[in-house]
């Protein structure tokens, strides 16, 4: 049994595609049946269209990559017009990622996305490192609490708050959004980072800085999931450099009820399928009937 629950959302398995790495599912659905995934999290949408950051937007770094997309998206109206219908036809769960500069904007977004029927849940992107405004909320306990509270009032759907690693104490933020009514937290988003070209003496990214993802961030992400798990009761969705079933199981042992696969999609689009299969094999090998038995099962060394 690999079914897990996130709020009121029942996922056939704990593996989702992470926001910003999977579009709205359309491209990868041509390569394999994305209904095999536990859920997909859409590219973040904002109220108004955003043109995004100037190129280059991508640079490879040791065991990772930086991206600086800048939340490029065509805005809410276009989402409702062109994306909502195809998303509704998917059998997998659809988590729509949203970002906004004010609580008011987020309320409009959540309201209209939920009434479209295209979303099974909302992921509140409080943590994009590449834009001003929407990226700030998850760095401040009170701002995070206020925003989640406002959105919570506007939406009945399962509400997931996506947290930034760029904080002193992630447990404190996780606790604040739990108190404010979030059904789950997903963590972590990318780390603010840079790459430099010494020949041109310029930053490689057009936006100078970007967000670091990939295997390089996994150990830090694991620790943050573990910290959050010890602070909150709501489910945690683990994110950060998950490339294989082993990585995913490490996150589940540290307290994640589910995981999101991001950067791995670029290298191996079928990584999530292999991860689901690998988790099932692992359960069998360990004589476990249910993946839920693994959540937070990490056995700390005796002192």
């Amino acid at each position: 049994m690999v079914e897990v629950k996130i709020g009121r959302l029942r996922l056939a398995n704990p593996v989702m595609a992470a926001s910003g790495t999977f579009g709205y599912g359309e491209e990868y659905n041509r390569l394999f049946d994305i209904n095999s995934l536990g859920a997909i999290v859409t590219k973040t949408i904002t109220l108004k269209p955003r043109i995004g950051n100037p190129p280059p937007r991508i640079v490879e770094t040791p065991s990772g990559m930086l991206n600086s997309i800048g939340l490029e998206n065509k805005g809410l109206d276009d989402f409702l017009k062109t994306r909502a219908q195809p998303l509704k036809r998917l059998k997998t769960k659809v988590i729509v990622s949203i970002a906004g500069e004010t609580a008011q904007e987020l309320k409009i977004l959540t309201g209209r996305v939920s009434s479209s029927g295209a979303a099974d849940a909302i992921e509140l992107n409080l943590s994009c490192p590449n834009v001003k405004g929407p990226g700030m909320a998850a760095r401040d306990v009170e701002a995070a609490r206020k925003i989640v509270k406002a959105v919570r009032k506007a939406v009945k759907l399962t509400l997931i708050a996506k947290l930034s690693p760029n904080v002193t104490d992630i447990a404190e933020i996780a606790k604040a959004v739990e108190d404010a009514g979030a059904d789950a937290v997903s963590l972590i988003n990318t780390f603010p980072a840079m790459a430099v070209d010494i020949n041109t003496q310029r930053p490689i990214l057009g936006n100078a800085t970007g967000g670091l993802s990939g295997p390089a961030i996994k150990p830090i992400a694991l620790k943050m999931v573990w910290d959050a798990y010890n602070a909150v009761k709501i489910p945690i969705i683990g994110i950060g450099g998950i490339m294989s079933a082993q990585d995913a199981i490490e996150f589940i042992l540290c307290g994640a009820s589910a995981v999101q696969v991001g950067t791995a999609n670029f290298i191996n689009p079928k990584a999530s399928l292999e991860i689901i299969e690998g988790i099932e094999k692992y359960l069998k090998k360990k004589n476990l009937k249910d993946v839920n038995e693994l959540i937070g099962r990490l056995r700390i060394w005796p002192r």
Partner: protein
Amino acid sequence: MKQIKTKIISNRLIGPMCYHMVLEAPSVARAIKPGQFIHVRCSDSFEPLLRRPFSLHRKNGGRIEILYKVVGSGTEILSRRQSGEAVDVLGPLGNGFAPKLSTLNSQLSTILVAGGMGVAPLVALAQELSKKKTQKLRVLIGACSKSRILCEEEFRALGAEVSISTEDGSKGAKGLITDRLNFLLSTLNSQLSTIYACGPNAMLKALSRIANAKRIPCQVSLEERMACGVGACLGCPVKVKAGEYKMVCKDGPVFDAEEIAW
């Protein structure tokens, strides 16, 4: 689009840091068109992490060929791969050249402009155009010096009239490829020409200005750093005149030159 394990048939050095690789990939070969690309996992580990995009260089039955220059860790690893080894390939990806083949007018001329490694996708296009034999195929190859001129014989074997230029004058005419293009256009009825080009951005920009001034249709194949290669991550933008970004991987890599905000 497919993700398949292909077998390396050969991988050999053909110029300074330049390699030619043949892959056995029947399902991709059947579908891929000139100007489209494949996204290659250079190693089986996560070092380097990302795939590398390579445009179709030639098609030969169930085999596809790529031409690449070693510029970083990915291509360096690829250059050391041996025949018989398996390589993970995603493709075909993107939109290729849209050659205008409808008219049988012998006055028509198709001009391929290749700067440096820009020969890679244009050989595939010449291969396709040569099958139709409807119009004169003229190829301009330009590079900094003689050793960087690639694929001259391939183009000739496909029936093209080839003109070479090098910046240092070590082979062909001395000067920029755009000077050669201007010279060629002065001898032709430019109203009946079409240009297909690939090369460094500065060259494509200059060429686009020439084509625009003479109102010659011009398609260019662009390069950009890519992550997903399929249009999901929005990591490879190019600004278009409409003021927005298009993705090189999904909307391109071949664009009408007049569409790009150079």
